[in-house]
C-alpha cells in the first residue's frame, strides 16, 4: 500500500492520460456514426452492408490493428493519435448500428406529422429524429464509453501512457499494488464516465424524465351546446 500513497500523483497523471485517450474516440465515433447510421437506416439496401462492415471492425484484434493503422492512415505507431484512431474504429463499430436502430425507433406518425407541418428533411433530422432517437443513442454511448475506457489500457503495450501503464509497469517490476491500482482505477473511471453520460442524457432529454400522469382536463372551456345541426 505504501506504493499507492507515495505514487498518488502518478496515478492521477495516468488517469488524466487515460481520459485524454478515451474522450476523443467516444466523441468521434458518435459523430462519424451519425451519417453512417443515417445512411444505413435511410436506404434499405445499404443497411445490411453498412452494418455488417461496421460490425466486422469490432472483430479485428486490437494489437494487429495498432500495427496496421500507421500503414493505412500514416499515424506513428507509438503516438496517442494511433490509439485514438483505433479506439474510434471500435466505437464506430458499435455506434453505427445504434444510430441506425435509434433512428428506426422514431414513431413514423411523429415523423410524418413533422413533415406535414413543414420541417425540411434537414431540420427534421436534427430537431425531431435525432432527439427522439436519444434514449437509444444514450444506451449506445454508455456501452462505447465503458468499452473505450477498458480498451484504452492496451495502449500501454505500444507505449501510449494510460492507466494500463500501471499494470504493465507493475508486472515488469513485480509491484502487485500497482497492478491492482491500475485495474481498479480503470473500472472506477469507466463508472464515472458512464455516470457522466447518464447525467448528460438527463439534461439533454428532459421529456424522458417526466412520467405519464393524466389529470382530468383542466376546465376545458366548452361553448354552450348549440342547437343541433341535424336534419329530419
Amino acid at each position, binding site marked *: 500500500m505504501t506504493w499507492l500513497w507515495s505514487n498518488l500523483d502518478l496515478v492521477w497523471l495516468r488517469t488524466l492520460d487515460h481520459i485524454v485517450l478515451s474522450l476523443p474516440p467516444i466523441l468521434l465515433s458518435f459523430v462519424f456514426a451519425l451519417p453512417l447510421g443515417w445512411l444505413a437506416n435511410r436506404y434499405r439496401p445499404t443497411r445490411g452492408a453498412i452494418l455488417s462492415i461496421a460490425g466486422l471492425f469490432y472483430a479485428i484484434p486490437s494489437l494487429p490493428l495498432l500495427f496496421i493503422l500507421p500503414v493505412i492512415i500514416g499515424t506513428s505507431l507509438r503516438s496517442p493519435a494511433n490509439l485514438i484512431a483505433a479506439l474510434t474504429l471500435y466505437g464506430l463499430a458499435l455506434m453505427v448500428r445504434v444510430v441506425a436502430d435509434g433512428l428506426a425507433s422514431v414513431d413514423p406518425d411523429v415523423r410524418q406529422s413533422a413533415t406535414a407541418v*413543414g420541417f425540411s428533411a434537414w431540420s427534421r433530422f436534427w430537431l425531431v429524429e435525432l432527439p427522439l432517437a436519444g434514449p437509444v443513442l444514450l444506451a449506445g454511448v454508455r456501452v462505447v464509453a465503458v468499452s473505450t475506457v477498458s480498451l484504452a489500457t492496451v495502449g500501454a503495450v505500444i507505449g501510449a501512457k494510460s492507466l494500463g501503464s500501471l499494470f504493465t509497469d507493475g508486472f515488469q517490476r513485480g509491484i502487485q499494488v500497482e497492478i491492482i491500482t491500475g485495474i481498479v482505477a480503470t473500472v472506477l473511471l469507466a463508472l464515472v464516465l458512464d455516470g457522466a453520460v447518464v447525467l448528460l442524457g438527463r439534461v439533454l432529454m428532459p421529456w424522458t424524465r417526466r412520467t405519464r400522469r393524466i389529470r382530468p382536463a383542466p376546465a376545458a372551456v366548452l361553448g354552450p351546446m348549440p342547437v343541433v345541426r341535424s336534419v329530419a
Partner: protein
Amino acid sequence: MIEFRSVTKEFPDGTLAVDDFSLTVPSHRTTVLVGSSGSGKTTLLRMINRMVDPTSGTIEIDGVSVASLEPVKLRRSIGYVMQNSGLLPHRTVVDNVATVPLLRGVPRRTARADALRLLDTVGLDRAIADRYPSQLSGGQQQRVGVARGLAVDPNILLMDEPFGAVDPIVRAELQQELIRLQHELGKTVVFVTHDIDEAFLLGDQIAILREGGRIAQLGTPAEILANPADDFVASFVGADRGKRALHVESQDGSDVLVDSDGRPAGVLVGQRSGAGPSGGARSDVPHIVPTEGPPR
C-alpha cells in the same frame, strides 16, 4: 378555394389509391371527405400539401397549382391535424404549438406568447403549457394538435380523422369545439373521417367516397339525406335501415321527434321558414333541440 382536377394517384406498388378525382372545395367552408378505410381519403388530403404528389391531374389553391410551390413552404402555410395528434413528444405543449411559427422565423418570445393565446382559443388551460404531450389526456392532445394547426393562422386547415382515437364523449366535445371555432375563424377546412355522423355534424359540403376516391355523392348533409344517390350511399348514411328516420309525436303539447327505436331525438321548435335570410339548405330545416347529448 381548392380545386382537384382529374387527380389520380397510383403508388409505386401499383395500388390505385385515387382514380380520376375532381372536386371543388369552397373557401371558408368545411368540406368533409367521408368513406371507409382505404377509400383514399388520406391520400387526397396529403396531395393538397404535397406530402403525396399525384400521378396525374392537378390541384390548385386559389388558381395556383400546388405542383409549382415549394413543398416545405407550402406545408408551413397550411394547418395539418392528424389522428393521435402527431405532437412532438420531446417538446412541451407551448413549444409544440409554436413549432411552425419558429420554423418560419418568428422570434421565440412572440411565438410562445401567440401559442399561449392559442391554448385559450382551443379551450385549454395555460397551466398545461409546460407539460409534455405524454402527460395529457387524448382529448387534450387533440386540442393541442388543433392549436398547432392554427398557429400560423393558415387559410386552409387539413384534418385527418382528428377525433378518431378519442372516446365518444370527448369526441362530441371536440366536435362542438370545432364547430364553434369554425364559426369564429371561417377557415377552409378539409376534414377526413369514416364516421358519417361526424360528417353530417361538421360538413357544409360532404363527399361520400368509394374505393379509389370515387365520389359516390357530393352535397350538403340535407341533400344527401333527402336524396341518396344510390344504394351505396343510402346504406352508408344508414337511410336504408331506417336509422335516420324520425317521426313526430305529440307530448304535452310539444312536438317531439322520435327515432326508429322510439327514443326521443329532440323537440321541434321552429317551423318551416321558407327562404331564410342566409338562404341555403339548412335554413329550410326546422331546428331540433336535443333532449340529451349530441345526436347519435
